[in-house]
């Protein structure tokens, strides 16, 4: 029976049958791991998610966060015990190096665990996620003193962390920020300014909070090039490690949001009384470059949030559709004695469920592969390999973030459709998935910004080699799938989509060279979606090719030599049912979605500029 959150069989398929991450365990830095250990960790993650985190999901949403009379933010009460258990389990710093208190876990393996945590309650997961990310900045750029003072206590979960970029007048345009840093005689800085939409900005889970804050040192140039980054504790830390005076960081308010209500989204006022002291992290005017380390990780985590919610919504919808009895089947229309059947028997519901399944498995593959690419970059033996895999991760980051969240919104919406009126009611959990996931399209750079990052920065990165390497991967999948009897026609569909997409990419590249940016920029979002569709087609077909081989092996071992016997096995053997589903989802996606890719590419290439040409007054 399903745990209602994540299909562990599909996770294991991706990790061990498709990407074969156990190859990573052969040498440093992952030689302490084995497949057994990986499975045990995934199983513990499932327990942590289902038994500890999931019970906080609805309760955290109903209770929300509030600012108390003393100016302290209170998170949902049930988060406290769960946070303690989560940190004790070593999950907060799972992917960090053992030398700094982490577990040195491969990112791809942690990603499978994190899908579970995000599916159970992403609002809860944000407190630890931001803490780990902020501590990592100190690990990469901090002095030894800063590491001793802050980093270890953050990785253990004793203190929290945040990421302070956004200001009321500087969201997508970070360069417009107004927070200032004034030099003090001792080399530290006085920080003054207001930051808004700060996740985990204040909370009562930890005794202190360490804020990485973007600010401009007085006299530095405007724009992003003049931004530096500072470490600003909520409460000052004495040299002996004890807590000192409050550091003049005040909470202006806590936002009342559509979703992720358990995550405290705060306005923070730094230095209202002129007493907020920060320490420079890294070099002056390198704040954006430094912060991007955290932002890139955070973007991948947002992709995982999207995946987690989509997965949980799908698992719930399937379970409900198997149990909910309503209406007689359409082929019994004229039979007055026909009995009502589970709604999964109705073609329209069934079709939606298969689309959801294909999409969930597709974005799972995209996100897992990006994580695997990060591991491979560490594991690589040659500089070429390292560059190749790092290139995959960089190229895929905006797709993981934006495509996953856009698709997850649709998946969670369809889950509500499957539940009907009940899905719209709080009594059932799916409406919360839809509310909680919408933010994934917005924060960490809106999906519009992600599309611009893809088109304007990532396509041309590494002289276009990253995108060419990815194209070669897709071509390999097409070639392999063409050799499998039942998949040939679907491989042809992927090939047609792939050619059209490559052609559009070349068009964008030549437009970029001739400084005709408007068409690529105007169509950046549809382009990102096309890229996502081609990647889903690629990963699903790659998986189907493996699944088809496994099926043949099982059929042979069980002597299923006729179609009748093979069909019967689907009902008896859960492995056969899983592999058949894998193949069917790939075929469905190839048959239904991929044929639209070519037409959508053509539309963009026609170069229509109607939205720009139409006057604003006409809107």
């Amino acid at each position: 029976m399903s745990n209602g959150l994540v299909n562990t069989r599909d996770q294991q398929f991706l990790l061990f049958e498709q990407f074969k991450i156990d190859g990573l365990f052969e040498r440093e830095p992952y030689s302490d791991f084995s497949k057994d250990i990986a499975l045990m960790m995934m199983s513990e993650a499932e327990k942590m998610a289902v038994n500890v985190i999931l019970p906080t999901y609805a309760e955290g949403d109903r209770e929300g966060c509030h600012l108390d009379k003393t100016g302290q933010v209170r998170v949902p009460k049930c988060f406290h015990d769960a946070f303690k258990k989560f940190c004790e389990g070593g999950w907060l710093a799972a992917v960090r190096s053992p030398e700094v208190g982490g577990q040195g876990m491969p990112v791809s393996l942690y990603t499978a665990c994190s899908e579970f945590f995000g599916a159970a309650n992403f609002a809860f997961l944000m407190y630890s996620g931001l803490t780990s990310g902020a501590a990592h900045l100190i690990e990469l750029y901090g002095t030894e003193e800063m590491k001793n003072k802050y980093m270890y206590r953050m990785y253990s979960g004793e203190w929290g962390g945040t990421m302070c970029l956004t200001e009321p007048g500087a969201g997508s345009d970070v360069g417009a920020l107004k927070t200032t840093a004034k030099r003090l005689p001792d080399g530290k800085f006085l920080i003054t300014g207001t930051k808004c939409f700060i996740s985990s900005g204040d909370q009562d889970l930890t005794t202190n909070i360490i804020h990485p804050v973007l600010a401009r040192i007085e006299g530095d140039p405007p724009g992003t090039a003049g931004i530096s980054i500072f470490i600003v504790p909520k409460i000052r830390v004495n040299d002996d490690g004890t807590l000192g005076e409050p550091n003049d960081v005040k909470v202006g308010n806590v936002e009342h949001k559509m979703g992720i209500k358990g995550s405290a989204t705060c306005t923070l006022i730094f230095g209202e009384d002129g007493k907020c002291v920060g320490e420079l992290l890294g070099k002056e005017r390198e704040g954006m470059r430094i912060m991007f380390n955290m932002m890139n990780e955070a973007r991948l985590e947002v992709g995982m949030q999207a995946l987690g919610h989509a997965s949980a919504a799908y698992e719930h919808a399937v379970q409900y559709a198997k149990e909910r009895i309503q209406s007689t089947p359409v082929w019994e229309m004229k039979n007055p004695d026909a009995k009502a059947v589970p709604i999964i028997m109705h073609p329209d519901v069934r079709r939606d469920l298969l689309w959801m399944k294909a999409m969930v498995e597709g974005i799972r593959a995209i996100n897992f592969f990006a994580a695997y690419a990060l591991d491979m970059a560490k594991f690589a033996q040659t500089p070429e390999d390292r560059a190749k895999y790092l290139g995959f991760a960089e190229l895929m980051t905006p797709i993981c973030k934006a495509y996953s969240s856009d698709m997850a919104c649709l998946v969670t919406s369809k889950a509500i459709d499957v539940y009907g009126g009940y899905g719209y009611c709080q009594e059932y959990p799916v409406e919360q998935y839809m509310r909680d996931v919408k933010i994934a399209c917005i924060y960490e750079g809106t999906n519009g910004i992600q599309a611009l990052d893809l088109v304007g920065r990532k396509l041309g990165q590494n002289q276009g080699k990253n995108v060419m390497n990815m194209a070669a991967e897709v071509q390999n999948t097409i070639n392999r799938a063409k050799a499998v009897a039942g998949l040939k026609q679907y491989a042809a569909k992927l090939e047609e989509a792939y050619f059209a997409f490559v052609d559009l990419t070349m068009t964008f590249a030549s437009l970029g060279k001739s400084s005709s940016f408007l068409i690529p920029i105007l169509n950046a979002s549809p382009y990102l979606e096309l890229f996502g569709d081609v990647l889903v087609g690629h990963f699903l077909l790659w998986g189907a090719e493996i699944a088809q081989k496994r099926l043949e092996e099982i059929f042979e071992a069980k002597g299923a030599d006729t179609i009748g016997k093979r069909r019967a096995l689907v009902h008896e053997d859960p492995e056969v049912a899983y592999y058949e589903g894998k193949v069917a989802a790939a075929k469905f996606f190839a048959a239904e979605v991929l044929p639209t890719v070519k037409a959508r590419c053509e539309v963009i290439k026609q170069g229509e500029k109607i939205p720009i040409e139409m006057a604003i007054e006409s809107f």
Partner: protein
Amino acid sequence: MNIIACVKQVPDTEAQIKVKGDGSGIEEGGIKWVMNPYDEFGVEEALKLKEKFGGEVTIISVGPARAMETIRTALAMGAEKGIQIDDPALYNADAYATAEALAAAIKGLPYDIIFCGQRAIDDDSAQVGPILAELLGIPQVTFVTKLEIDGKTAKATRPIEGAQYVIETSLPCVVTATKGLNEPRYASLPGIMKAKKKPVDIKKAADLGVSGASKSKVVKFTPPPARPPGKIICADDTPEGKAAELAKLLREEAKVI
């Protein structure tokens, strides 16, 4: 303190059990295996005693190769070492043969207290702990929800219908754990990494001087009968009519009133 915790690997409580076509057992394909939940209470109590008094926790399990996962889980929770009794003669062993093998393995070890789950959730026999205590010739307290140890004696609380016993016994003894005793901890990531380096002895029945022969034999597994479909009462659309119809059915068909 030397503490022993006996664990059994069982199908997950959520697993959908299918009986094999020939009734010789259950289909194991696709089943997720977990530590018997009552044994988890025993392991947790063992770890808490170790944290209080010092010493070692040894995990013992009778089961096939896959049972190693369950031993490793207990080691990841914090136990020091494990013994796996893996012998085909003991696959599908009854409570007596299992307890006999456990007793033989435990006899050579120093121990102050032995924990078992009050029963395993797969066969529900609730006999292994008590038989083990008898074979070792030591006291036993079963279904324990609270345990206080002062180093020499144990004071255990055991619920009975509408009341509870508080039982005092000397050590060593066997305690079978039930829900309420504690909240089992989760294996931590550092615990999992350490667990793989902890020693686990694998023993055969012959190594322990037992035959593995069961005293009872399972003749056949049969699934519970499928639940008959429900009946919707719609004879007459008034509440009175429906109530009359329901009463009639309860008396004549269900024969419960």
